[in-house]
């Protein structure tokens, strides 16, 4: 049963990976402009053109080209930049990847830590002032788009600066202070998601029979919440790791650009400005595959943690 389910998930993963690479390849294939002509710059020569076309495999049937493309991706080869003649895309984005990954992971960590804490406290004191205010604040933060949130944060920061209180740098990268505002904005949306789900799932678990049983046999309150309730309430949170990562990936484009963080979101916008499609293409594949793999891992984790999933399938 378990093996069957695992096999199904792996097949699903292969289909999704195929979809991402195939569509990205197709978009690049249909893209206007001839990469070889761009590569040649102002030294256009038919003989060299033909030779380069052959060298890069662009004279092959497109099915073959797609296979070559996948082969290249597996070796970390994302094609050649249009803008910087002949430089590989991987070289251009190599410096951005760790920045974006670190920023994204920190944002994910922050949103889960705060979201879970707030969600649990709100559920334990249902309908208290803390529950009400925190849920309203979270709903507001959750529904403000990041590019509106950023000016608001900046205004608050500038106010702090103007009254000589400790404030943060407005943009840039390098010190710990530079991280704070981007992380706040990036984690805002998924924080709201996680907090609301934690509260909901905790409340549901607290109404279960086994919690009442635990209370009636006189277990200490703390161990009931920590052992019986929390462990079960945390399960659904695994399922939203995927959507949270997707939030953060899209958010990263806006945040990295408005805060001048040198990650791949920032690089891709520069590439967009320079019409350097292969860079955008490479970044799309990297981000999409990262999200998909993250989803796959959480799916597996869910199967390990929750035995019901294994039985039902």
């Amino acid at each position, binding site marked *: 049963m378990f093996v069957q389910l695992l096999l199904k998930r792996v097949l699903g993963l292969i289909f999704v990976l195929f979809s991402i690479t195939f*569509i990205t390849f197709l978009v690049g294939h249909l893209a*206007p402009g001839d990469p070889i002509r761009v590569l040649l710059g102002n030294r256009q020569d038919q003989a060299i053109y033909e030779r380069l076309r052959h060298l890069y495999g662009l004279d092959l049937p497109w099915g073959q080209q797609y296979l070559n493309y996948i082969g290249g991706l597996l070796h970390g080869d994302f094609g050649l930049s249009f803008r910087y003649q002949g430089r590989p895309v991987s070289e251009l984005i190599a410096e951005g990847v760790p920045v974006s990954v670190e920023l994204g992971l920190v944002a994910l960590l922050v949103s889960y830590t705060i979201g879970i804490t707030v969600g649990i406290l709100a559920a334990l004191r249902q309908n208290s002032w803390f529950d009400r205010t925190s849920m309203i604040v979270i709903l507001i933060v959750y529904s403000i788009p990041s590019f509106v949130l950023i000016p608001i944060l900046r205004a608050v920061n500038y106010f702090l600066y103007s009254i000589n209180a400790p404030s943060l740098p407005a943009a840039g990268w390098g010190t710990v202070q530079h991280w704070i505002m981007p992380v706040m904005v990036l984690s805002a949306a998924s924080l709201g998601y996680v907090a609301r789900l934690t509260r909901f799932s905790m409340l549901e678990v607290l109404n279960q029979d086994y919690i009442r049983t635990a209370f009636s046999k006189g277990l200490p309150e703390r161990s009931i919440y920590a052992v019986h309730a929390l462990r079960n309430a945390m399960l659904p949170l695994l399922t939203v790791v995927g959507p949270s990562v997707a939030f953060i990936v899209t958010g990263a484009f806006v945040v990295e650009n408005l805060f001048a963080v040198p990650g791949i979101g920032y690089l891709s916008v520069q590439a967009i400005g320079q019409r350097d499609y292969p860079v955008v*293409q490479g970044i*799309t594949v990297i981000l999409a595959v990262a999200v998909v793999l993250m989803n796959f891992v959480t799916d597996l984790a869910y199967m390990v943690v929750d035995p019901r999933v294994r039985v039902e399938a």
Partner: protein
Amino acid sequence: MTAKTPEVIQLTGTTPALPAPAIRSFWHDFWARFRQNRLALISLVLIGLLVMTAILGPVVYTVSPTDISPDFEINAFPSADHLMGTDNAGRDTLARLIYGLRVSLVVAVFVEGLNIGLGASLGLLAGYFGGWFDFVIARAADMLFAFPGLLLAILVSAVFGPAAEDQFGGMGRLLIVAGALSLVSWPLMARYVRGQTLSLRERDFVLASRSVGATDGFILTRHILPNLIGLVVVSSTLDIANVVISEAVLSLLGLGIQPPDSSLGIMITQATPFLVDNWTQVFFPSAALSLIVLAVSFLGDGLRDALDPQTVRRV
């Protein structure tokens, strides 16, 4: 049988005449329910006003959105000359806002048009006929679903946007953006409609219709389609909120309408560095955007409650 008929007639003749039941159409009922929801009603009026502003605004308010104002005021606060002030290049903010609204409107209309024309139709046919067609549509939708968030829209508008602009100008680029956004939202519409069609197809009234010899075309247009209108209207209304935000994100990334033309996303990005000099320049486009998103969401909720009689009315 025939012997009893006079008796029936006599019976109806003797009973005191009941007040004739008012003939209420579905839309009459719908409007009666919709009116109850103040928030949705206000949102509808607000959206109507915004649409009117977008369409008629440039006719009434003839100030250019791209020309620098003759008084060379930069980052000015609202005044009698410039009702919403001017931006950092000295352009009139109200005029830019009106053009920004036009951009949002055009993109929203095109995306939802594609979602309904393509997504809903494919979903309907896939759900009704099933078979290989269903398989192909479902897999195509799955393939597009593989991309998280706006990634595919970013890629497509980055690759095809500039060429479209070279060929067809700003409008061409805007249509590419709309097409790219629809690429990530029509699969969802198709999936909703397909699911609903699958369940409608097996309902008794469809079986009854088929048993008396109704053709597929008749069943689709007279039985299935009317039952899908609510779903399609509600989900495309709610989706407009996403589309407006996504368009702002894409223009912020330099993928949408190009400067000096304006869109809400461009206005917010361009004003953000000057926030400390003049907060009103960030405030107006942000407020317009938030207003659209909220109004569209409330309207969508109101429509859902009013179109689905089975929903329990909330007090």
